[in-house]
């Protein structure tokens, strides 16, 4: 009871106009002074502890989520005012669908209500200049919520100064799987031909010239009439292949046609030029049939950057990941982005209680660590 009274006294004190005014200005001052040091470009939050907060305060779980949303608003304000460009929040995990239907529905309704309100206040959101992006597996979201999501994303998409990434049915593993799937899809369909310009050189002609050079070599070396006829025949075969396939056939592609799939990845252009390679003459029909689109990109060119490009989150990896509620796990959040340089902070307070006074020490400590490391990030930017 004493805590209740002191809490209400505190609330009364803080709501006095002069106190409120002073607090507001102290906040502004602190945020302004934070900006004098290095500021992380990207911060990610795992908003954990809403339900536990509700349980300890003997209210319904949904009310806990409401308070969590309020905390989020506070934190976002601090972030954007202090110059953080990207904020990523873990709003809803795919695993959360396993919770009670009542709670999931309530969460969805809350998301919808807030999104509707957001789209009513379009120009107010423009003042913060934050673009909202929703990341995750959209197929799992209810239709009416999805509609509001799209509306909010569409409305804020022109805001360039900051980005709010909302991970909504998201898990880190699902993101990696999604990225791999996208990459595989990308590599199993031929690239778009629009990018290619018409060049004044014909590849067929170049091939012919190369072959001519070889022909001369062969004749000089072996002085064999048969070689000449063989090469002549080969020449015909190639020109046939040229006419059957699309106009721009490179030497590499021919080598792909002529060789079994095991050597598919070896990128050596020498085999087709070898005068005694007879397989070259008659590519096996099975392979020819399969290679309806002979311009598939080489899988060897896939790199970590390719996978990063295909993830949901389209911004630099976060410098700071903050997880509240004292649980020391990543819980399947941003695995691909976070496992390299990101500093992870586990904070021992529930998300609805997270505010500037809890956030500030984290930021200052981060700045301090950065300063100790020689302002390396700042030097790179400058």
């Amino acid at each position, binding site marked *: 009871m004493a805590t209740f009274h002191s809490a209400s006294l505190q609330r009364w004190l803080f709501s006095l106009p002069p106190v409120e005014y002073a607090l507001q200005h102290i906040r502004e*001052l602190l945020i*302004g002074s934070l900006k004098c040091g290095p500021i992380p470009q990207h911060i990610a939050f795992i908003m954990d502890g809403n339900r536990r907060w509700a349980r300890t305060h003997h209210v319904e779980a949904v009310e806990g989520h409401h308070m969590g949303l309020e905390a989020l608003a506070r934190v976002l304000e601090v972030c954007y005012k202090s110059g953080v460009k990207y904020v990523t929040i873990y709003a809803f995990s795919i695993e959360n669908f396993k919770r009670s239907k009542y709670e999931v529905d309530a969460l969805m309704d809350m998301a919808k209500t807030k999104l509707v309100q957001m789209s009513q206040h379009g120009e107010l959101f423009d003042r*913060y200049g934050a673009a909202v992006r929703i990341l995750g597996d959209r197929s799992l979201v209810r239709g009416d919520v999805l509609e509001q999501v799209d509306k909010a994303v569409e409305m804020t998409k022109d805001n360039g100064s900051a980005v709010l990434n909302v991970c909504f049915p998201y898990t880190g593993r699902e993101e*990696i799987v999604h990225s791999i799937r996208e990459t595989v899809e990308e590599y199993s369909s031929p690239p778009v031909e629009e990018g290619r310009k018409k060049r004044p050189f014909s590849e067929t002609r170049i091939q012919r010239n190369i072959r001519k050079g070889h022909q001369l070599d062969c004749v000089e070396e072996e002085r064999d009439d048969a070689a000449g006829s063989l090469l002549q025949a080969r020449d015909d075969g190639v020109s046939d292949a040229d006419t059957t396939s699309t106009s721009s056939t490179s030497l590499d592609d021919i080598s792909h046609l002529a060789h079994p799939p095991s050597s598919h990845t070896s990128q050596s252009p020498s085999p087709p030029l070898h005068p005694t390679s007879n397989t070259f003459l008659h590519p096996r029909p099975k392979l020819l049939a399969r290679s309806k689109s002979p311009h598939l990109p080489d*899988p060897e060119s896939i790199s*970590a950057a390719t996978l990063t490009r295909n993830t949901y989150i389209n911004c630099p990896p976060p410098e700071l990941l903050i997880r509240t509620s004292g649980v020391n796990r*990543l819980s399947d959040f941003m695995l*691909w982005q976070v*496992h390299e340089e990101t500093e992870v902070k586990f904070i021992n307070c529930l998300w609805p209680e997270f505010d500037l006074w809890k956030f500030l020490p984290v930021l*200052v400590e981060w700045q301090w660590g950065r300063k100790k490391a020689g302002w390396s990030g700042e030097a790179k930017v400058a």
Partner: protein
Amino acid sequence: MVVAPQQARAFHTGSDQHGRQLSAQERERMLKPYLPAPSKTKTPQQSQQSPRAHKQRVRPAIRHMIHSLIFTIIHAFFSLYIRFRQAYHAVVDQVLAILYYHHRTPELVKRDVKGLTKVPKHLSVILQKRDRLDTLINDACEIAAWSACAGVPMLSIYERTGVLKHSLPHLHRRISRTMTAYFGANNKPSISLRAPHMPSYSPPTSPDANSSLGEHPHLTILLIDASDGRQTLVDLTKTLAEMSQHGKLAPSDISSELIDAEITESVMGEPDLLILFGDKIVLEGYPPWQVRLTEIYRVQDHAGGVGYHVFLRALCKYGQAEFRVGR
């Protein structure tokens, strides 16, 4: 952002004191004082207002000075605070290191972990190569011995550069020697040391491997480096892309289960507990797929490198046990 009570209620429920639903305009009016000034739209007007131009230049300059002053003060106090905190933690670490020492005796380690409700089935550590390879190998040996004492069946050691991987036989010899120092020559646990994409290294001559298998649990040690993280996923993608190009697989076949099975097969499964011996939590390229639900442990402001008390505290945290000072 502190809001007045009636506004807080409005924020919660979307209605005012009388329970009436608020319209969009009312909400906007309520929010207006808390929003930042619409700076972007006003800038062209400000440039036109020449008489007040000097004011606009001086004020931000003063504000900036105040801000940098406060920034300096904050950081001065903060570094003072953090020095004290570090000193405090260093003292605590030292005390714990004296109180909890293994004395190379498995019984002591066993007693330390006796009260735990659970011991991780798969323990993982991140080690850093500071200066010499020898200290790194030493640390790895010690951790292996503690894990064997505590009854951990699987230990994976992550080291970014992969130097440990390349000295596999040497490391095996050293670990074996450390185990002898702990358990004695006769009843030391059998160990197998391996690294992904490398043949498992078993001792060439293990005279009583079969007899000791019964009484002492087997410890599997896995050495991983940065190439087992992203690069493995990239390699898997390459293979899948190639299969898809040859029509052996449709992109829709790629599922979380498939990738999990492949990654588990080629590298390792999910560790239960990950111990960091640094002062901040940076994963340094640790395999991303596997850390999903791993409990991550580090000691705040710990600068002393690998220590038995850190290991023990991590196990205690994982086993949900209170870490009591004094036995």
